[in-house]
């Protein structure tokens, strides 16, 4: 047992002596969370718009005020011709233009045929869609406020409830994603590099000749990164709750437990990669390509998996991060208990068992 601890201590020394890498490992999740939280966001806020008001009556002004007051829009100028609208779009100054025709209020009150034109910059189609939707709903609001005293035939009132994330914060989506990414990176990539480094510098041979059992060697190599990962998880959760206002609705214990499970999965992947890589660079590259990239693409946090073609959806099933992402969302955002995620947990456990089995077996075979 003592020999094992000596090994673990040595691993710690390695990590500790490489201050730069350690720094990156500890601060990376912080930077990611802050970046996603405050700088990069796919939420649409303060989009610049222009209004071309040909009527300038009570109604158009009321609607214009509502639009300008909305936090989604930032009215930067009033324009006075279609040509001006075109020019402003081309200069990239606005994302949306709202055009009111002549006699708007008149048409609205007397002919039931009032129209408003929304022109959007669809070079980013998703944003264009979102903006026209926002604008339409604000206009609809105005219309409702006009008719609230009258009973119109055939009105359907749609009531929208945004479950789990009523403010539609992007953070709810990417915090679980960042957790998966960071754990994968720290555990898998760093562990595999650490093991391969021993092979590269020639110390692995000596260790293998020693009485220390191969199984213990591997475990000793993974323990420091396990601890760093736990630290990372704690950091991410603290940041989420106190800086991004993303609460942990479900059981913290369950969340931590599942995270530890995923950590072990990532560690076993790291060991598997280290078996095949001969140099640290290969280990790093293989980790990036086969772990980091699939996690980014197939876990579901950047692109919804359900939108992918079926073959890719099938592939996404073997990416462990996909299941972890579901688990974290369920527990942290939706507040569900173990009964809701037992299936995903079982899948992760299965994957881990298989991976560990293969990598340890491979490790032993390489000796002979």
């Amino acid at each position, binding site marked *: 047992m003592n020999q094992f601890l000596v*090994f673990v201590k040595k691993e710690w020394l390695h990590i500790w*002596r490489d201050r730069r890498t350690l720094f990156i490992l500890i601060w990376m999740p912080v930077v990611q969370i802050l970046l996603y939280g405050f700088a990069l966001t796919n939420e649409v806020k303060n989009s610049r718009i222009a209004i071309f008001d040909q009527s300038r009556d009570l109604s158009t002004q009321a609607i214009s005020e509502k639009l300008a007051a909305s936090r989604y829009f930032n009215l930067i100028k009033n324009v006075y011709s279609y040509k001006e609208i075109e020019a402003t779009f081309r200069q990239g100054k606005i994302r949306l233009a709202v055009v009111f025709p002549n006699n708007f209020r008149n048409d609205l009150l007397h002919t039931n045929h009032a129209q408003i034109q929304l022109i959007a910059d669809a070079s980013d189609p998703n944003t264009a869609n979102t903006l026209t939707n926002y604008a339409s709903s604000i206009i609809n609001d105005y219309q409702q406020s006009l008719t609230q005293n009258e009973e119109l035939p055939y009105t359907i009132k749609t009531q929208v409830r945004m479950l789990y994330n009523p403010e539609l914060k992007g953070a709810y989506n990417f915090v679980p994603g960042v957790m998966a990414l960071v754990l994968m990176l720290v555990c898998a990539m760093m562990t595999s590099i650490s093991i391969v480094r021993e092979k590269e510098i020639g110390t692995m*041979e*000596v260790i293998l*000749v*020693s*009485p*220390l059992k191969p199984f213990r060697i591997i475990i000793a190599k993974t323990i420091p990164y396990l601890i760093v990962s736990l630290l990372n998880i704690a950091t991410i959760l603290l940041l989420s709750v106190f800086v991004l206002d993303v609460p942990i609705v479900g059981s913290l214990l369950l969340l931590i437990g599942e995270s530890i499970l995923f950590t072990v999965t990532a560690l076993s992947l790291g060991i598997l990669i280290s078996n095949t890589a001969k140099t640290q660079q290969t280990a790093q590259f293989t980790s990036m390509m086969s772990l980091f990239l699939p996690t980014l693409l197939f876990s579901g946090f950047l692109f919804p998996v359900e939108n992918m073609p079926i073959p890719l959806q099938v592939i996404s099933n073997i990416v462990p991060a996909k299941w972890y992402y579901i688990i974290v969302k369920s527990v942290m955002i939706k507040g569900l208990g173990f009964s809701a995620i037992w299936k995903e947990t079982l899948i992760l456990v299965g994957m881990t068992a298989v991976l560990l089995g293969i990598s340890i077996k491979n490790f032993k075979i390489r*000796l002979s």
Partner: protein
Amino acid sequence: MVQNNEVITAKELTKKFGAFTAVDKISFEVQKGEIFGFLGANGAGKTTAMRMLCGLSLPSSGEATVAGYDVYKENELIKKNIGYMSQKFSLYEDLTIKENIRFYAGIYGLTDEKIKEKTELLVKELHLEGEEKTLVRALPLGWKQKLAFSIAIVHDPAIVFLDEPTGGVDPVTRREFWTLIYEAAERGITIFVTTHYMDEAEYCNRVSIMVDGRIDALDSPANLMKTYSAASMDEVFLQLARKASRSE
């Protein structure tokens, strides 16, 4: 469990990788306290043979015992009683001298007191007093080599295996290194060293020369030079190696 003073025995030891026979029925014995040179060109099978003796790979056929223990069945016991120094010196550059000693001594199960004792001894022998906290990275190559060797025998094993221990080192430093080896042999540690430097062969008690996976010569350097009418081990080797069909 050393019988007849033989610390290593090998009988028709063979290692095959598929259709390729790396080590072809080699047989030899090494006596306690001997400095045994295991020579041969690159690709002759030296490293493969040594790996079998160290317990790093299982033989395909044949028998062997190391420190009296069978390589097939008593692998764990062998490991406890041997030391090993790899070609690349097997030291951690980002750890200090003291930490390296502590690590290797620790994985061989030495107690904390013993480790402390050994550290002081080692440091004194190598004239590295005051440098315990220096990172190995900062040591010159010759010092690293000597340190690696001392660490390889820190647990006083019966045998120490040295895999090309003097690669990349100048001849003067090599001589100093061999002094260390002599001292260890005098203490009763058997030295099993592979090398492709033929001049080092003359430092050994006996040498074996491997060609194409077989042992083509096994005797003391003096006898070999007489047998092959050669003025140096280099010549002996050339005569034997000319017949070789394998090279790296």
